[in-house]
């Protein structure tokens, strides 16, 4: 099915798609990908065929989200009640750098993606929500488009977020910030795509998801599925780092379904050595720990499901075999407790309590049945709160207790299996 005029350039070959252009400017963008022709609402079907899942963490299919925002027959296109598309570049996940890299190197793909999503939903307004630091890349790209008259009938605004804490990128928080609100997670009885702030159907989509949509709009679903795996067609961006050093990270574009070990090797990080890897925290800090046996698993839903994990936001935070895993888990739990927006009782009380109990376990101090206490507090935070932040912490800690069972046992007996580990 052709939904747009065929592109005048050859589609990218191999795994360099999002990062295929030589530079971030409009010239490089159009030379590499060709111009974007105005797309039709049928693009949603093409996006569904291409199998684009959300890259912000939840993996929700983009086509489904766009369809949900378009259901109404009356098409209001501007002002109150008109749909709004929001590109999420908050990247509050501490171990993720991919959205920053994407905005820096391919801002025009992101902007094209907003145009595609707007065309699909009948919106004429879109917003990129991001940090102060990254806003500059977007503004520069918008200026280039203004000079060349490339607005495609969509007005794109930039919203600098009031804060870029971990939860700032949560969908309801982001929608609230864009509408001039506090930018903290909100209670949601009705989906954003049905009714968001100001009564508008609101599509919040990660910027990488939108960039992928921009490629599908040009080159089609068949091309998109030409590489990657069944449950991860096309390419995706991955951030690899040592879990104790998220500041030193490498972002890779890979075909979907690549083996975790291969991605670690491809990162060429001096701090990451597959031979000395004990475990990987997959998806994000609120993701799932997998043991070194999982290095053969593929980074897609099918490959990670047996390990209780999912690709999430494409984060691979690597734990080496010299570092005490309980200590690392305790520090991450503490950081995630700090990141709570502080709105909901179980989260604001439970996360610090959980971090405290895991911290005591990490210290090796005798304090009763700590493993049972951890399980108990995990059950208190999981699924209780307006957003899914506490659920992520619960998931991360539960997986740690499972994957690091030997270390947990040792710590319960007052020992640590690692030199220089907790005491």
């Amino acid at each position, binding site marked *: 099915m052709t939904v747009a005029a065929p592109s005048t350039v050859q589609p990218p070959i191999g795994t360099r798609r999002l990062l295929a252009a030589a530079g971030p400017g409009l010239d490089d963008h159009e030379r590499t990908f060709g111009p974007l022709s105005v797309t039709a609402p049928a693009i949603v079907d093409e996006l569904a065929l291409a199998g684009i899942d959300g890259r912000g963490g939840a993996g929700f299919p983009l086509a489904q989200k766009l369809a949900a925002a378009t259901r109404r027959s009356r098409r209001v296109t501007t002002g109150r009640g008109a749909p709004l598309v929001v590109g999420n570049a908050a990247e509050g996940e501490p171990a993720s750098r991919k959205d920053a890299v994407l905005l820096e190197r391919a801002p025009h793909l992101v902007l094209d993606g907003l145009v595609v999503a707007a065309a699909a939903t009948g919106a004429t307004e879109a917003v990129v929500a991001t940090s102060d630091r990254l806003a500059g890349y977007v503004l520069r790209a918008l200026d280039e488009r203004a000079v060349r008259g490339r607005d495609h009938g969509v007005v794109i605004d930039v919203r600098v977020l009031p804060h870029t804490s971990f939860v700032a990128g949560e969908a309801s928080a982001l929608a609230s910030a864009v509408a001039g609100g506090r930018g903290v997670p909100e209670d949601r*009885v009705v989906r954003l795509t049905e009714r968001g702030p100001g009564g508008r159907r609101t599509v919040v989509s990660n910027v990488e998801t939108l960039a992928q949509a921009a490629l599908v709009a040009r080159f089609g679903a068949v091309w998109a599925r030409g590489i990657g795996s069944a449950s991860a067609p096309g390419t995706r961006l991955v951030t690899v780092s040592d879990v104790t050093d998220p500041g030193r990270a490498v972002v890779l574009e890979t075909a979907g379904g690549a083996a975790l070990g291969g991605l670690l090797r491809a990162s060429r990080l001096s701090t990451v050595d597959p031979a000395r890897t004990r475990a990987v925290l997959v998806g994000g800090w609120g993701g799932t720990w997998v043991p070194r046996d999982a290095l053969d698993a593929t980074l897609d839903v099918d490959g990670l499901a047996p390990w209780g994990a999912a690709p999430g936001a494409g984060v691979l935070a690597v734990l080496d075999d010299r570092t005490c895993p309980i200590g690392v888990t305790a520090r991450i739990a503490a950081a995630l407790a700090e990141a709570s927006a502080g709105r909901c009782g179980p989260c604001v009380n439970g996360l610090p309590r959980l971090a405290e109990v895991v911290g005591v376990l990490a210290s090796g101090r005798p304090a009763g049945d700590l493993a049972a206490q951890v399980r108990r507090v995990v059950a*208190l935070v999981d699924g209780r709160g*307006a957003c899914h932040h506490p659920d992520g912490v619960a998931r991360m800690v539960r997986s740690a207790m499972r994957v690091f069972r030997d270390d947990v046992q040792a710590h319960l007996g007052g020992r640590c299996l690692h030199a220089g580990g907790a005491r």
Partner: protein
Amino acid sequence: MTALHVDWTRCRGRGLCTELLAGRLERDEWGFPIARDGGRTRDVPVRAEELDAARDAVAMCPVQALRLVGR
């Protein structure tokens, strides 16, 4: 299927719902409602015989943190 939706941004753990729906909800150590069956406490399923009590809980919550939603 009806469910009791908790607006966690409003709940202050006053506990009336845990008294009106004692079979469904108990209080955690900070006073906040938690589903007895171990399920997530965002949308707690409500059986037909509990509907009256659930409506009372919705009406009487001091901070209006509850509502009934259809599933």
